[in-house]
């Protein structure tokens, strides 16, 4: 999923770098309200864990692998604002230290994984959670679907970027079909890892989970008012 230099032209890359920079500025503001003494270290740990798991490519189909993106996972654990920042730190580390993801493509990658992946994942999680009974296993089901759907959406982000500024001129439909097909398979892996990791934190420290705590807080406020 990490776009190298050369796939997307420089003007498009710059435009997405601008979008991503604005997104980071908004996230810095947004994260302040969701981070307290207990959740700030969890957000750091979430970024750390995602970096580690992104190294673990799993096979999905003949000659293809995928790895966790972690956007949905981070959004459920620490909320979408801090999640975007966590993913951005991971992508910066990968591009600057490990030559993974082009430097000119950094804005493109941040847009797809730190914003599309996180916010789509978060939206799906919230919707599914509303549809299911309010218990802990619903959180895992919602986390699974959030992970599953976030990956093809992040992949569609690349197709959008390719449609605007791809340096090669292959059919967009062909690129879209191939990207979605492959990334739905990767999304299944993403869903399992997301549900597993969220489930592990729910089992030990459910009080820290933003996507779980969120419900009770809203309910409490509702009662008070």
């Amino acid at each position, binding site marked *: 999923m*990490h776009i190298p230099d050369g796939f997307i032209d420089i003007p498009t890359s710059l435009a997405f770098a601008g979008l991503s920079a604005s997104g980071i500025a908004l996230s810095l503001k947004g994260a302040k309200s969701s981070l307290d003494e207990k959740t700030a270290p969890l957000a750091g740990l979430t970024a750390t864990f995602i970096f580690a798991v992104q190294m673990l490519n*799993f096979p999905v189909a003949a000659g293809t692998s995928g790895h966790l993106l972690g956007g949905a996972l981070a959004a459920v654990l620490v909320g979408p604002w801090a999640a975007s920042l966590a993913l951005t730190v991971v992508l910066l580390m990968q591009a600057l230290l490990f030559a993974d993801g082009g430097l000119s493509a950094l804005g493109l990658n941040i847009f797809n994984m730190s914003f599309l992946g996180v916010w789509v994942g978060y939206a799906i999680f919230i919707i599914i959670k509303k549809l299911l009974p309010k218990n802990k296993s619903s959180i895992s089901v919602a986390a699974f679907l959030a992970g599953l759907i976030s990956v093809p959406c992040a992949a569609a982000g690349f197709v959008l970027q390719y449609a605007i500024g791809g340096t090669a001129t292959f059919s967009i439909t062909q690129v879209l079909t191939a990207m979605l097909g492959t990334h739905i398979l990767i999304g299944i892996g993403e869903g399992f890892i997301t549900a597993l990791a969220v489930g592990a934190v729910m089992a030990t420290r459910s009080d820290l989970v933003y996507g779980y705590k969120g419900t009770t807080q809203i309910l409490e406020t509702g009662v008070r008012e």
Partner: protein
Amino acid sequence: MKKQNIFLIVGFAISIFLAGVISNYASSSPDGLEKVAGDIGFLKDAKEHANADKLLADYGVKGIENERLSTGAAGVIGVIATAGVSTGLFLVLRRKNGASK
């Protein structure tokens, strides 16, 4: 407070283990994007990374001949660096939040 620290230490240890040891068992097949780019024909447009010759390029430590050690060490360095930068950032954001209240 103690419970919180245990949780963080266990999470960090798991991350070190995954990046330092399990990373050696990861699939080396091209990832989704790379595979699609290869199949359709735009993989050749990829340019060499500007940092391709740097110390940690491609998740290996330059100079360590043993591939397992090299990957594992790169993973451990990445985990520590990510933990440091992200936790630092989030603690600063959190503190500012506290001050404004």
